[in-house]
């Protein structure tokens, strides 16, 4: 299965065929079943986004839980000016960014301790990826566990704003407008920040390979 197909399946699987607005209205009227359906609908996407931002499964689970608790507690204040999807992700990203700022050491520390272990096959795979522009087939990349690990470590080395915009775009698949809504920034800022993030990621990977 190709990466796009896998993404599509993932998103479709999670897209329970019920309008968010209807579920939100029911939740606002106290329908706990509707709340549960909203949680089930978004829990994996929220968790995955948070995990890619913070890099720790336990923290991601806790932050995901906190995201839904907060969203349920404040669902009455949701006026529908934005979509529930971006509103929910705004809560998740804000919580995660705050969390990362409080404990910003974890990602850097993790990378520094493992940096010396980069040798052998990992170095070789990374060199091929960087040198051979043709190695962009998602299926090939996905098969390389070493490369995925390196990608994750590089991602965690990005500054949090750049990491957030890259995760929302390249992992969650949001468009620029949605990212702007979630992060509450200008559209142009999304564009420039994402470009810098990709450029910086490339630099980090090149630095690892040396």
């Amino acid at each position, binding site marked *: 299965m190709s*990466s796009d197909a896998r*993404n599509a399946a*993932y998103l479709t699987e999670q897209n329970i065929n019920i309008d968010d607005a209807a579920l939100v209205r029911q939740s606002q009227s106290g329908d706990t079943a509707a709340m*549960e359906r909203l*949680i*089930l609908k978004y*829990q*994996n996407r*929220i*968790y*995955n986004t948070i*995990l*890619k931002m913070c890099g720790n*499964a336990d923290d*991601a*689970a806790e932050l*995901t*839980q*906190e995201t*839904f*608790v907060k969203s*349920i*507690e404040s669902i009455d204040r949701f006026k529908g000016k934005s979509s529930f999807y971006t509103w929910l992700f705004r809560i998740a990203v804000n919580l995660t960014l705050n969390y990362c700022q409080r404990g910003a050491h974890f990602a850097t520390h993790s990378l520094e301790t493992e940096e010396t272990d980069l040798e052998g096959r990992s170095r070789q795979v990374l060199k091929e*990826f960087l040198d051979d*522009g043709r*190695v*962009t087939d*998602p299926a090939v*990349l*996905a098969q390389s566990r070493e*490369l*995925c690990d390196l*990608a*994750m470590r590089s*991602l965690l080395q990005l500054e949090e704003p750049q990491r957030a915009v*890259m*995760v929302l*775009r*390249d*992992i969650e698949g949001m*468009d*620029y407008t949605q990212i702007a809504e979630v992060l509450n920034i200008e559209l142009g800022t999304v*564009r*420039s920040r*994402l*470009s*810098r993030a*990709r*450029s910086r*990621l*490339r630099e980090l*990977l090149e630095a690892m390979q040396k």
Partner: protein
Amino acid sequence: MKVNPQTDELLSAFLDGELSPRQQTEVQRMAAHDPDMAQRLQQLRGCRTLINVLPRADAPADLLEQVKLSLERRSLLEEHSVLTSTRAGVRHLRMRRFLAAAAMIALVGVLGLVIYQIVSPVRVAQTPVVAVAPVDESLSPAPIVKIAAGAPFSGRLELATASLDQVYKAIRMNAEDNELSCFGPEDPAGSRVVCRLVGSPEKLEAFLTGLNGMSPYFGTARLLVETDRFAQPVIVDSVTLPQVAGLVNQNSAESRVQAARNMAVLNQFAREIPGREIQVATSRKLNNAASELVGTLKPLLAQGRTRPNGSTPPEEGEVQVKASLTIVLRSAP
């Protein structure tokens, strides 16, 4: 390859499909003709893909349950918080009410005291008591009250008696015994006799004390105490000789006049209120009690001090002030 941030931004947006169709075409055209740009586009695409293919993780299976539990815990905590704050609020409210009530009571008390002091009548004893200076021989000799010069006692005592001759003789004898100058006829003639006694206040006081034994022979008695206002004496009706003695011994004109006025009021009470009578206090304790009960009568006779007849003579250099008492005797049936 030199990296151009603006070109990177354009290429990145191109990869994301965020350019307009015209810009998309333009970038495609540029990449086709510029190998560096094509290479950079390939690098950025590689980065994008690398992140995109990162394995997706599923949320923990018990996430929903954890969310529910967390909500329940928070709900309980909020309830506890509300309860706690409510209890604290009740305690605070009770304390405020208590303090407000205490403050109100204190305020009312203070106001009541102030009002009472302003409007309360002068306390008068159920039985008016006239305190007369006690005759207490056991006491150590008291200093002689020096009457200020220019403030000697001067008054007129009007007595009605059925035994005019007898009383007049007693007067003269007492005056002589007490070394008082007596200006008056030796033998009374007619129904009215006037005599004037002059001497020191002590001697005059002793005279009055000695004459007190004749009180049963007196009918009405009136004392006119002269004041600094001409022809405006203080009149004390139903006066007794001890009262007169007390006035004679006052050491200032002011206190004497005030005492005479108080005495007039007391005697008025004694006459007009049935069942009331003036009691003569003969002990120091009673004198103090009378002072407390009568209040304004305090200065009346409190400083009075009698000295037995012929006791300590005036010291050398002491200014001798002459008191005078004019006695008008008239016969009455």
